[in-house]
Structures are given as structure tokens and as C-alpha cells.
């Protein structure tokens, strides 16, 4: 059996404002990036910004993803602001 959890990671401004670098969540059937975002945003407080005005980028297993991207047990899902390197 594979790992039945998801690893959620946050970077940069989101990491600081949520006070969270990573967390483990139980995987549920038919989950998507959009569903996961809504679930986390419903925690309220600074978590609400995940569905706020500022854009949030998502990567699943280190590849850029969309709200419709499926999320499966064992996946690593990362949320972060638009990138600003270079």
C-alpha cells in the first residue's frame, strides 16, 4: 500500500504568512488541486488568502498544476506566490 497522505508545502510569502512550511493531510478519493485549496482556505484567518485576490501557484510532484489537476495519495503539493528569481 502506498502512503495514504499528501505532503503540502508552502514557500516564500505564503510560508511566512501561514506560519507553515509543510503539513501532512489525509488523501481522499477524487481530490483535485482546486478542492484542496478550498479545504485549506476554509480554515479561515490567513488561510483565506489561498482563495483571495492574490494569485497562488500550485505544483503537484514538482510540476506546475491547475485547479483541475488530480491529487492522489503520496503526492507532494506545493503552493507559492508567482516566482521572482533571477
Amino acid at each position: 500500500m502506498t502512503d495514504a497522505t499528501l505532503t503540502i508545502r508552502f514557500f516564500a510569502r505564503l510560508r511566512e504568512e501561514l506560519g507553515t512550511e509543510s503539513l501532512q493531510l489525509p488523501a481522499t478519493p477524487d481530490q483535485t488541486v482546486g478542492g484542496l485549496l478550498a479545504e485549506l482556505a476554509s480554515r479561515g484567518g490567513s488561510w483565506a488568502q489561498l482563495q483571495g485576490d492574490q494569485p497562488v501557484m500550485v505544483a503537484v510532484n514538482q510540476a506546475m498544476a491547475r485547479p483541475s489537476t488530480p491529487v492522489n495519495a503520496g503526492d507532494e503539493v506545493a503552493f507559492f506566490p508567482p516566482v521572482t528569481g533571477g
Partner: protein
Amino acid sequence: MISIQTADFDVGTEYQSLRASGAGTGAVVTFSGLVRDSGDLSGVTGLFLEHYPGMTEQVIQGLIDEASQRWHVRQARVIHRVGRLALSDQIVFVGVCSAHRGDAFEACAFIMDALKTTAPFWKKEISGDDEHWVEQKTSDVERSQTWG
């Protein structure tokens, strides 16, 4: 070759390594990005750079692969620093060598432009006691889109 590192790098050494890519190399183009005194804040005294280990390297390798399909690229090198940087410090190096100058210029500019909008790095500007996460610039997104 791709390096994400806290350590500084030496452009002369990187150039010599690109130059040594063989007798078919006619052009070497290098880009170096430095910490500038005015960004979103004025009077910038330093930066803090964060990245997503693993994904960053994959994204940059994808950009080098794409550049190598679009242009004649004999060798490409990307170095990006993370952590705390001071004013005028080197942040990023992109070097490309090719038979021809047009390919070297375009592949180097493409990799740099695309890195700025797709590689998972985040920059915090420090100005005295003030800290500020840099916002992505519309001009960077537009510039990246011109490559099609």
C-alpha cells in the same frame, strides 16, 4: 549544467569552461545578474532568496532542453544563488556557447527570461530594517511571452 548554491561563482572560470567546448564553438554569450540598489524598494541593501529544491533544477533543465531544440546550443550553464545576498553580489549566471552568435544570444536571453517567470525562486528585498517580498513584474511576464 545547473547549480543552485549559496556560494558565489566566478564568471571568468565559467567562461573558460564554455570556451573549452571545442573547435566548433564560435560564440560565447554570458549573462550575470547582480543585486541592484533600487528594486521595488529604493536603498536596497540586500536580498534573501528562497527556492523549491528539486523542482527548480527540473524547470531549468526543461528551459535548457527547449533552448537546445530552438537554437544551436553546444553547451549551456546556469548558476543561481540562494540565501542572503548583499548589494552588488552576483545572483545568477547564464552562459551559452554555439557555432554562431545569433543562437548564443537568443538561447541565453530566452533561458534568462523564462527562468524569471517559471523557475521557483522568490526574492525578498531588504532595505535597512524593512523587508519586502518582491512582486512578479508584468514586464517580466510580457517579456517571457514574446518567446512564444
